Structure formats: C-alpha cells, structure tokens
C-alpha cells in the first residue's frame, strides 16, 4: 500500500520544460532516504497548465506544485513527504491570486473549467487499465452491449454531440447513416491526425486517457455494426502511439477487445496506423486513402464514407475528442447530463489549446458558449506583459481571426462561423499589438499552400497566387488593387475546391482583411508595418530621452549595429541593422521604437 501518490506530468509540454529531470531527482532523493517504496510515482497525463510546468500533484493531499526544478526535490521530499508540511514556495503564484494556491479549485486557471473529456487526464496512470476501470471506465460500453444499436445512435443524437474535429456535424446522425448502410463489413476510424499548428488537445487525450478512445470506438462499433477499427495517428506523437498500443494489449487481455466480448457475441479489433506527415490527411477521404496505402488525396463526396469508406465499406470517422465524449454520453443518464452543458446548438464542453501571447498557455476544457473574454482573461490570465489584446485566431489555418471588438462573442459552432472563423479542432492563438495581421495571413497561407495535395487547380494554383500577393505586400511592393484581387481569388478557391482544406484555407486572409483592413492599407499605401514584423517596412530607433545607456542592446546586437557609450544614449546604424529584434528583447526601458522607414517620428505608441 502506498502512502501517497505523486503524479508527475509526463506530457510533451512538461517534458520540454524538464519534468523527466525532476522525476529523476525525486527518485534519487527518495532512494537516498530509503523511502522510495512508500510512494507511487506516475509519469502521467497532462493537467493542462503547461505554462507552469513541470507539475507534480500529490494525492490524497491534493497539492499542486509547479514550476519545479530538480533542485527543489530535496525540500519537497523532506518537508512535504517526511514532515507533512506544504512547501509554500513551490505552490502556484501569480498576479491573479492573493496568496499561493494549493489546488485546482483555488487556481483561477481551473475555476471556469469543466472536465468531461479531460476527466482522467493527470489523475490516472494512463498505462493502467485498472485505474481507468476504477474511474467508471468501460461501464458505458457494457451498457451499450445491452442496447440495440439504433438506440445507441439515438442517445448520441439526443445528447447533441457535434464532431469536435472541425466541421461540427452531428455525431449521432453520422452513426445512424453508417448503421443503416447495407453491408456486413463496416469500419470505425479514429482520426488522430491532429495537424493544426497550435492545437494539441488530441495528443493530450491520447497520452493521458487512451482507454477512453478505445471505449468510444467500441461503442461506435457496436452502434454501427462494425467489428474492426483503425486509429490513424500522427507519427510525430510517439508517446501517444506507445500508450495506445499498450492500452489495446491490456484491453485484449481483459477480454474487452477481441472475439465474443464479455460473452455478448460482439467482436472488435483495433489497428493503429501511423500517419506520415501530411496535413490534408486530416480530411476524411484523404485519411482513408492514406490508410489504404495511397497518397493522401481527397475524393469527391458523395458517396460519403458512411456509404463507401475504408476499402469501399461503410465507415464512421470520428475525431479523438468526439470519441472521448462517447463513454460519458452512453453511460446511464449520460445523454441528458451531457446536454445540460453548453448552448442550444452546441452541447457539452470543448477543449481548447491556449497559446500565443497569453499568460496561461496550456489546455483548458470549458463549457460551450463561454465568451472569448472569459477564456482569455479568466482562464488565460490575460495578455502576456500586460499588452493590449488584438485578436485571437480560432480554428488554425482553416479558421479565422476574431478581433478585440468581438471579445464578448460566445464560443460555439454557430457564433464562430458567423464571425468568419470556425471551431476547428480548438486551437486558440492569442495575439497582441506586436502581431502583424498581414504576416499572420501570410503564415497560414504558406502553410496551406505547402500542404495542398495538388489535386484541385484552384487550391493548388490559387493559394500560390494569393501567397505571392501577400509576400509582395509584406515586402512593401503592394498595390492598391491587391485587396480586391485577394478577395476574388479567395472566393473562387472556396467555391471550387473539393475538400475542406481548399474550401477553408482562404479564411485567415478573408477574416484579417475583414477586421484589419486598415493594417493592410498601411502596408500598401504607407509601406509601414506597425507591429514591427515585416522587415522591409519599419526601422528600429532608440528613444534617446528614455535610453539609460545600459549597453544591453549593444551586447545583444549580432551585427554591431548599435553604437553608444555606457550611460550615453545609444543609436542604431540603420544600414547595419537586420531588424532581428534582439535589442527589443533585451531593452528593459522599452525604448526601442518601431518607426516607418525614413521617419524620425515616434509612432510606436
């Protein structure tokens, strides 16, 4: 029997901030004291608060330690584990709390969250099927075995679950189509090809709670009459793949996968397919082609996969987060509980990946219908460095940006569509005044342009032409009619592309033009990038009045473009400056100004 359980976040975010070194130090410290056996250490799933990683949560005391360093472990062991005192120094501290916060309920980041999909993440050992079962796991599946397949589809429909992968189609309806499609061989496919740059919730679910996905697939298999499933997972997620494989082995050993499951005559097996790095494979028909061993190129629909999918058989394709919701819905009374959260048209919760210039980066799960303001200021803790909120990009390269003036917009499928963005997979990248919207549009388009599979001419050629125009604008060579040309190209690409990639890739351009037209015009007419991003369109200058002559910028400059003696105002030699921004990072007085090329005036504020 273990005295305490120490859950160390072993997800990619915390690993990147060194959680494996913290674990090593902890083990060494415990062994030194000879008390290693009294404690259970788990490199577990993700509690979501990547910003303050590495994180250790100690149960049953429910104490949340963060920003840990290997050298903190001696104190943590000595004080907390041996003496039973909380180490205040290592608790969560921040401008949003008056005193160090002990646990989830006192940390503002968690206050507005509701855990459905992330219910087990960071709480159970993702490599233990027993812990999943102890938390009520596989109960929904055993209930599904008692139900008629059509009744399961109906429950999922009633719950109002919509696909979490992007388009937001009703999951129950999708299942019903496949259930009704004739054929004795059918497939369930889990789309774990999370490719949106800036979204990592699917990875976190796969790494933190792999059995939830297996259970979701089993229930789906039962509902549509399939006996085989595929998980198509990015090869870039090795930990997720490892944990899925282990979960499948364990489920097979428990008789929850395989032949005649639990004696109900239901057979199901799950295969894992590793993707090979192609964004377009997130599109369902391209994904199926890829599983079949072909180039991942989409095909026209109809026939929809529900009629003719994998290997020509009826197939249901669901995203990871969608499947993780299923066990909650199909358990006794689950559908009604699920539908109680959210808005009229968008039920349940949604996991968002908060990133960019926000204080609390990480994963959060919130009820549908929460406003952007609540997510950014209450959950996210506001903008980094106290700067002004400019916009948030929702839905990745297929989505759009939502400007500061729409900060009270509720986040649900329909409101986001109206604003010109999409829910997408749930990436929210927050931007402040140092983000250039032209550059952002250019960034997304260069991504989709590279990832276009090339099948449809409008997408293949059109995105290239749009990118050329945006490149020109950001180099100061924009002309007045560029915006109209962009607009008409965008509409043509949207109308005439076969798949979601082409149909949505102009969104970032359209939405930035819609909300930030002035900024585009400033690039084109005045050849000025106010955000200081497009290198040809601004100069750095030093505000001589505020410069204290600390020489920090002089030392940081890689091209020796900054002159000036100690305690004398410095000066930037424009001919030598490459606008790398190193000085801006180093200046504590914030006296590096962004000014139009050739101008002496301070227009940075």
């Amino acid at each position, binding site marked *: 029997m273990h005295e305490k359980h120490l859950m160390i976040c072993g997800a*990619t975010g915390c690993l990147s901030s060194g959680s494996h070194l913290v674990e090593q130090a902890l083990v060494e410290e415990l062994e030194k004291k000879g008390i290693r056996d009294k404690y259970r250490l788990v490199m577990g799933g993700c509690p979501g608060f990547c910003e303050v990683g590495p994180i250790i949560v100690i149960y049953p005391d429910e104490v949340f330690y963060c920003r840990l360093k290997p050298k903190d472990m001696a104190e943590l062991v000595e004080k907390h584990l041996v003496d039973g005192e909380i180490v205040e120094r290592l608790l969560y501290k921040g401008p949003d709390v008056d005193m160090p916060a002990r646990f989830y309920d006192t940390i503002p980041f968690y206050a507005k969250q509701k855990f459905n999909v992330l219910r087990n993440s960071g709480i159970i050992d993702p490599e233990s099927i027993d812990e999943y079962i102890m938390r009520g796991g596989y109960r929904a599946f055993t209930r599904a075995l008692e139900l008629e397949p059509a009744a399961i589809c109906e429950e999922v429909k009633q719950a109002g679950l919509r696909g979490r992968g992007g388009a937001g189609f009703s999951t129950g309806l999708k299942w019903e189509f496949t259930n009704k499609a004739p054929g004795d061989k059918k497939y369930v496919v889990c789309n774990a090809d999370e490719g949106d*740059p800036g979204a990592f919730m699917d990875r976190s679910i796969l790494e933190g709670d792999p059995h939830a996905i297996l259970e979701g697939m089993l229930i789906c298999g039962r509902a549509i009459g399939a006996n085989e499933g595929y998980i198509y997972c990015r090869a*870039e997620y090795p930990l997720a793949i490892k944990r899925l494989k282990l979960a499948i082995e364990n489920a097979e050993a428990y008789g929850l996968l395989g032949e005649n499951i639990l004696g109900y005559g239901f057979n199901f097996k799950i295969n894992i397919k590793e993707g*090979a790095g192609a964004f377009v494979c997130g599109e369902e028909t391209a994904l199926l082609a890829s599983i079949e061993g072909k180039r991942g190129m989409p095909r026209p629909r109809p026939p929809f996969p529900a009629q003719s999918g994998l290997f020509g058989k009826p197939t249901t394709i669901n995203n990871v987060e969608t499947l993780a919701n299923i066990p909650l819905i199909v358990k006794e009374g689950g559908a009604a509980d699920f539908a109680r959260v959210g808005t009229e048209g968008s039920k349940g919760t949604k996991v968002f990946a908060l990133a960019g210039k926000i204080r609390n*980066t990480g994963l959060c799960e919130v009820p549908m219908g929460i406003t952007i303001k609540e997510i950014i200021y209450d959950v996210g803790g506001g903008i980094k460095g106290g700067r002004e909120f400019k916009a948030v990009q929702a839905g990745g390269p297929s989505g759009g940006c939502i400007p500061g003036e729409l900060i009270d917009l509720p986040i649900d499928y329909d409101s986001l569509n109206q604003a010109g963005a999409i829910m997408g997979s749930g990436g929210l990248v927050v931007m402040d005044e140092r983000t250039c919207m032209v550059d952002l549009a250019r960034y997304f388009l260069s991504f989709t342009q590279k990832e276009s599979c090339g099948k449809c001419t409008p997408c293949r050629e059109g995105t290239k032409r749009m990118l050329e125009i945006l490149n020109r604008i950001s180099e100061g060579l924009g002309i007045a009619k560029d915006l109209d040309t962009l607009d008409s190209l965008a509409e043509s690409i949207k109308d005439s592309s076969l798949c979601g990639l082409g149909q949505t890739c102009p969104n970032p351009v359209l939405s930035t033009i819609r909300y930030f037209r002035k900024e585009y015009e400033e690039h084109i007419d005045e050849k000025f990038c106010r955000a200081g991003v497009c290198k040809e369109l601004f100069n750095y200058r030093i505000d001589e009045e505020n410069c204290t002559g600390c020489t920090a910028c002089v030392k940081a400059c890689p091209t020796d473009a900054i002159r000036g003696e100690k305690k004398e105002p410095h000066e930037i030699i424009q001919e030598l400056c490459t606008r790398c*921004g190193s000085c801006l990072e180093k200046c504590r007085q914030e006296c590096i100004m962004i000014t139009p090329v050739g101008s002496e005036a301070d227009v940075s504020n």
Partner: protein
Amino acid sequence: MSTAVDIKEKVTEEIDLSKVDALIEPFIGKKEMIIPALQKVQDHFGYLPRPAVEQVSKRMRTPLSRLYGVATFYAQFKMKPRGRYIIRVCKGTACHIQGSPKIAERIEDILGLESGETTDDLRFTLEEVACIGACALAPVIMINDDPHGRLTPDKIKDILDGYK
C-alpha cells in the same frame, strides 16, 4: 510539400540491402501496408535509398512509380541521407508569432543551411515541423529528441555548440 527525388544517387554501391527483406516481411502481399513498409525501411537507413525502394518494389510487387508517388507525398519520407542531429524548427502558429522565423534565420546563418538541407559533415540537418505541441514554450526547436524552448536568437549558438 514533397522533396525532389535525386535520381542520380551516388551511394548505390554502399547500401547494404541484406536487412530489407526481413524488415518488410510482415507486409508482403498487403498493398495497404506500403506506408508502414517504407517507414520500417526509413527507420533502418535514416532515409529511403533508391536501391532499397527498388527492393521493396520487387518484393511487394508494387510499381516503383507508385512507391515514389507515396514516398514523395508525405513529409516524413526523406530521399537523401540526413545528419546525426536533426534540428526541427517548430513552425506552429504560437511559435510563429513568438518569433520562430528569427530563430530559423539565426540557425540558417550559423550553419549556412536552408531548411531541408544537411551540413557536408553530416552533423546537422535542418527541418521545419508544423507543430511540436509544446506551444507553452514557444518558440521551440527540437534537436533529435531534446526540446529547447523559450528561445531567443542569441541562445542558438550555445545550443548548437552542445551537439558535436
């Protein structure tokens, strides 16, 4: 999206193909397993040497053109030898707006490489990756399996010096 196929591969003679058959054995006769088969071959060689792909083509009775069609479609497959250390610069949105272009530029300057290229001594290969998923630490690079986060351009030189 795809890498140009270098048809005139000079290293033909040096490729030891003796392991290829065993690697792809489980996939023989299963046309849908082309991608896993190529993944195995690439795991072994670090890239896809043409003679090895020819061998796969023969054993799996699949036209070479089809294999190259698949291999050049996916970003994961590499047609040229790569360095001991693979530097992956994250080009995700969060990294981009936090300055990953400046990080990439500094690495390019120091190593004299463009993305996709390898140094002559096979020490470094520079690549881009859509998103590592460590957005909280943006901007991030990975060198082999080591992530380096919260970077600024002036930290790059010391980091690269750590990989000999």
